[in-house]
């Protein structure tokens, strides 16, 4: 969905319509890889990194690398009204806020090694 630098994530109509686009409200996993982990579509899964953990619903897709879990953070706001109540898996909980991890393009520490398991 059009992101608008976070300024529209407190509009419920946006979240309503964003449900048409797969992947917004959970963690996207490769279907075959998820099956190997005993994870089904909609299962609650734990996402654990060396420094923290978060959880969310599994969204199984074919077009995701088997060794990657994707968590869109458009609605992942933790303070913005409405968005903070959506129960999104939060990247903040698993990725350290460290300048050394900041990439040159998105200026965000948005990649972290994780382990996934069904809860």
């Amino acid at each position, binding site marked *: 969905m059009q992101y608008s630098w976070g300024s529209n994530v407190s509009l419920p109509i946006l979240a309503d319509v*964003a449900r*048409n686009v797969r992947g917004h409200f959970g963690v996207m996993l490769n*279907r075959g890889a998820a099956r190997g982990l005993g994870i089904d579509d909609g299962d609650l899964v734990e996402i654990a990194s060396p420094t923290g953990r978060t959880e969310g619903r599994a969204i199984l897709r*074919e077009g995701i690398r088997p060794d990657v879990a994707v968590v869109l953070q458009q609605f992942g706001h933790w303070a913005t009204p409405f968005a903070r109540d959506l129960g999104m898996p939060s990247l903040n909980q698993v990725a350290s806020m460290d300048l050394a991890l900041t990439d040159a393009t998105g200026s965000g520490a948005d990649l972290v090694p994780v382990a996934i398991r069904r809860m």
Partner: protein
Amino acid sequence: MVIDLRRCVGCQTCTIACKQEHALPPGTQWRFVADCEVGEYPDVRRVFLPMQCMHCAEPPCVPVCPTGASRRRPDGIVWVEYDACVGCGYCAVACPYHARHLVHDAPGYFDAPTPSERATGRPGRHGVMTKCTFCKERVDAGRGAGLTPGVDAEATPVCAVACIAGAIVFGDLDDETGRAARLAREQRAVPLMPECGTRPSVYYIAE
């Protein structure tokens, strides 16, 4: 209507435009863009498929209506006369495209109705069947003003006007020189699920 799937990027601008134009309550969408995948990893493709009422020439939703509220106009637009609809839902069951939406209760998006929701709410649409109207009021008003649907924005459904990619082309398919009919013919557009025998008026260009 002809929808060019090669141009659709799944942005949902048509979805939002439709919801705004018709003041649709939370959870109700007369049209939306489905996010589909074709194939299996690693040989997989993402396809965005706009879905809505197909305004069929043989609409299965019309003959099943016990009150005659479900109708088709001579120009092809399939619509519901709200005053005659009893909300029984037969038409929704008959529609193979899931294009009909029965709204019993229409809460707003917030705890209390917003000023715009109060101004645009349509209480007359509660408890009756609702669906894509091809923006018939807009099309009729435009036609009445001497404008051409599909050519002039003011006479064209808002989804087609709002589309950022020009993927939705509206027009009279019987007008062989019109853009919609030409596009459908030249690009070999196809209807969705023709095996249902409903003869849709919405065509898709796939490849």
